[in-house]
């Protein structure tokens, strides 16, 4: 099933033609209407007429979060404020939020793009979709909400929080599709357990999860516990919100809506393109946004391009799961580690839960000490024999150190003792006072 088959299955040559046309008119507009970009063209002594291929975009510098901050709140808008019908903000994972605006056309196009992802994830107009993402300045809730309405599904704007009420709504309204963060999906499963509710009694069929990195093992757990088919999706407020990329039911990478976003993957340090398939920072250029176009925006998100066609028939390129953020990266005794790498290992170890927290400290000799608190799967492990515990701890420590080249201390903690988030989970506590 496709929401927009003509574009989603377009042959590459036609698609690249569409991208080039849209890139050229976007560059014409930003050069004329946005002082930052106009200055950049002037400084480089080039003008938008010089861009004749998609690769030419690399002649322009990146746009960074700092550029956005320096132009807070409206400096990068390409239309006067009176043409803006919606204002949202980045969720502010790091630092001061960014204000993003949408024209009427932007809002409509955005809805069409989230509708594509919903359909790719299995949702149809017959579904009852519970959107348990925050409604407000954060783009997640309203972004998916409009997509559901555009698709014609019945949408429940549950927003985030109030987990017992979420479960009640899910049960009483016979929700068939759930949209939230993956950690919140697991939290809802826990709440159902506490309430003594068997998820098989629910009507759930599909789930679209995003807004934070997760893993395939976490997907399996969500699918088993909530009895639904879970797909991953990716969005970023500075670029649009949800609707940038999402998985189809092949669950083998996220299709980027390439007719609206130009994708590059670059080395976060040098800014050079990485070799095909290598992990790097995702850089996006909007091709159709009117109010808030961004050129070569460094998302700070790490992923890689996947090779080969997808069995679903979509011709849009796929990116791998987001494995973390360039600014999530922690450095332990000089070695770079992403929390998602720790998570992937925990999910692989029997008896450990994917709920964890990394504590970073400095010891008396000023060396980094990294500790991972890991929830045990059952009470029995924590209260059980010391040797069982020791064995499991050693197993996790060995794997962490052999795969990540960093020595972590591992501490087992009781099930559900690590605070659950209702938004993005706090995976790292850094007490090093850096």
């Amino acid at each position, binding site marked *: 099933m496709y929401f927009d088959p003509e574009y989603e299955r377009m042959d590459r040559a*036609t698609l690249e*033609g*569409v991208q*080039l*046309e*849209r890139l*050229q*008119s976007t560059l*014409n*507009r930003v050069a004329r209407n946005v002082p930052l970009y106009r200055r950049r063209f002037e400084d480089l002594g080039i003008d938008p*007429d010089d*861009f*004749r291929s998609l690769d030419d975009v690399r002649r322009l510098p990146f746009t960074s979060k700092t550029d956005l901050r320096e132009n807070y709140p409206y400096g990068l808008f390409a*239309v006067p404020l*009176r*043409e803006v019908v919606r204002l949202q903000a980045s969720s502010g994972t790091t630092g001061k939020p960014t204000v993003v605006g949408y*024209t*009427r*056309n932007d809002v*409509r*196009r955005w809805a069409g793009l989230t509708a594509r992802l919903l359909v790719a994830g299995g949702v149809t107009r017959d579904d009852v979709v519970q959107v348990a993402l925050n409604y407000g300045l954060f783009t997640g809730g309203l972004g998916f909400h409009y997509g559901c309405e555009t698709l014609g599904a019945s949408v429940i704007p549950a927003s985030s929080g109030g987990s017992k009420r979420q479960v009640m709504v899910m049960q009483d309204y016979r929700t068939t599709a759930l949209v939230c963060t993956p950690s919140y999906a697991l939290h809802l499963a826990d709440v159902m357990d506490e309430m003594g509710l068997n998820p098989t009694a629910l009507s759930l069929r599909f789930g679209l999860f995003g807004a934070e990195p997760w893993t395939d093992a976490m997907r399996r757990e969500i699918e088993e516990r909530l009895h639904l088919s879970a797909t991953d999706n990716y969005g970023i407020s500075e670029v649009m919100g949800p609707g940038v990329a999402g998985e189809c039911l092949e669950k083998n990478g996220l299709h980027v809506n390439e007719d609206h976003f130009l994708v590059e993957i670059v080395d976060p340090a040098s800014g050079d393109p990485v070799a095909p398939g290598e992990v790097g920072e995702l850089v996006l250029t909007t091709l*159709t946004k*009117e109010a808030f176009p961004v050129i070569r925006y460094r998302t700070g998100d790490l992923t890689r391009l996947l090779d080969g066609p997808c069995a679903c028939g979509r011709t849009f390129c796929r990116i791998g799961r987001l494995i973390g953020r360039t600014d999530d990266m922690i450095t332990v005794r000089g070695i770079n580690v992403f929390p998602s790498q720790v998570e992937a290992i925990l999910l692989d170890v029997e008896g450990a839960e994917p709920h964890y927290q990394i504590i970073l400290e400095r010891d008396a000799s000023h060396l980094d000490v990294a500790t991972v608190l890991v929830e045990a799967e059952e009470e029995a492990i924590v209260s059980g024999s010391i040797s069982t515990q020791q064995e499991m701890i050693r197993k996790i420590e060995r794997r962490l150190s052999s795969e990540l080249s960093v020595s972590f201390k591992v501490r087992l903690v009781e099930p559900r003792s690590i605070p659950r988030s209702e938004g993005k989970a706090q995976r790292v506590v850094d007490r090093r006072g850096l």
Partner: protein
Amino acid sequence: MLRLRNVDVLYGKVPALIRVSLHVRPGEIVALVGGNGAGKTTTLLAASGLVRPKDGEITFEGRDVSRLSPDRIVAAGLSHVPEGRLVWKPLPVEDNLRLGAFLRSGDAAGVARDLDEVYGLFPILAERRRQPAGTLSGGEQQMLAIGRALMARPRMLLLDEPSMGLAPAVTREIFSLIVRLRRERGLTVLLVEQNARMALRIADRGYVLETGRVILQGPADELLENRDVQRAYLGRDADAGDSPSH
């Protein structure tokens, strides 16, 4: 179906088109809008081989046509209905139509059949088949110009300012005919119009040209909503009349 990529056209030393990229997919109606001298007509002339681009690619159904002669382009299935209609005024209507089939000299039966079909589409032309084309009204001459282009059995039409000099009611008739040609014959259309609103209403997508460059493009309904387009080409003053609270 038709694709222009980075097309530059110079008239002498004056650039008429700068890096124009656009495409038309099979069965689409695409409108090219913009002010006088924006490069709309030049774009059509380049596609039909009447002016040569200095640089860039033009393909029709995947085939490079940028160096083909105009008659070879017509034979490939791309016909041009020029601005101002340019019918042969002293000649009878039917002879004008037959001129459109000049490449099909060996196919008398086919030409006769197509002539009947054109008369079916435009009954008024059948009534006036013996009259000199110069005695037709403006709207009838436009129909004749389109009919003449159809006589070459095109799969795609390039239509230059079909509404020029026509009364609004006649313009509406011509436009509904364009929609009908697409629906009934699967004809693909690239339409150049000063009357941007009307063109965008029947088009699937549109491109806005300004000083030889594509400055905006997108679905026609989005362009109709776009305030830059409204201000510049739709004659609506977007700054007046709204937001009484200001």
